[in-house]
């Protein structure tokens, strides 16, 4: 059964498809920590012909706290990006480094979304703490669901997580 949060993210994504082109750029800083281990990821762009970089891998233990911090900052020089959707999720994946995005209809540990208008230098940030009780490989990904349609790409940052 589709959940309300997923539905909202999906509808927001479809809504921006009808928007006109805008000059929008973001930088993303993503950090995940568990115990003393930490991994970070920076902004990437997802375009059709672009091969994603290898993701850093964080190891964590079942039931132990994992903390994720992220910041999304507008680097646009002028104008405003209206109704940008900032979408974060942690989902089980089949293997580390998997290129295909897992579906978000099951085995999603954490998912969040927020909407905001971005003027130049505006930023939003978050810190989330959670645990995972099922061992396996997980994808942590933060993405902006706006620029995909405005310039043929979207911004994202991603890490892999191995829970043992």
């Amino acid at each position, binding site marked *: 059964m589709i*959940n*309300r*949060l997923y539905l909202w993210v999906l509808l927001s994504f479809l809504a921006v498809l009808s928007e006109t082109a805008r000059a929008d750029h973001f930088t993303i800083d993503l950090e995940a920590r568990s115990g003393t281990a930490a991994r970070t990821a920076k902004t990437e762009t997802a375009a059709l012909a672009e091969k994603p970089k290898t993701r850093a891998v964080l190891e964590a233990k079942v039931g132990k706290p994992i903390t994720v911090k992220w910041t999304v900052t507008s680097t646009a020089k002028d104008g405003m990006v209206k109704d940008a959707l900032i979408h974060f999720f942690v989902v089980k994946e089949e293997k580390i480094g998997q290129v295909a995005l897992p579906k978000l209809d099951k085995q999603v*540990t*954490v998912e*969040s979304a*927020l909407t905001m208008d971005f003027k130049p230098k505006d930023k939003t940030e978050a810190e*989330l703490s*959670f645990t995972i009780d099922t061992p396996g490989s997980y994808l942590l990904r933060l993405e902006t669901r706006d620029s995909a349609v405005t310039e043929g790409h979207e911004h994202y940052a991603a890490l892999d997580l191995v829970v043992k």
Partner: protein
Amino acid sequence: MRIRIVFVLAGVLCLPFLARAEHARIDLQISQFDPVKGEVKLANASVDQDPPAGGRQARPVAKVKAKEPLVLQFMFDNLYPHKVIKDARVHYFVVPVDKVGQKTLPDLTQNVMTEGKFTLNFKPNGRVGARVSFTISKPGIYLLRVQSENTDSDHEHFSAIDVQVE
């Protein structure tokens, strides 16, 4: 005539509370994840405000078993129509409390089961939502709460559910 005056005065006295309640809409829920049935909703709560500490509404109570897979979900909509609220925070957490219906907030620096804070420029009709899987391993009473912070107002909005773990 006296009755009419009483009604008018009562209406005027209620206005500030009605106006405050329109600044935010929150839909908070907790579900149990059943491998066969899928998600089974246990309780949901809507918006309240602080002060008074702990709000005005009685909190719903969700009864669960220790180590049971649970899912919390909320949607927080900003209905304040007049301006963008700079650097507002939306904060959710699950934390042990002493009793059901406890009005005071417990210490959030320890024993927090799961927690998240979002800082953003909250525009009119802006929205923050999250969905988090979690379990609670020890029996007891826990508070699930999502709240606004730093909104430059004389009150904050929240929604809360008590979780009784057996």
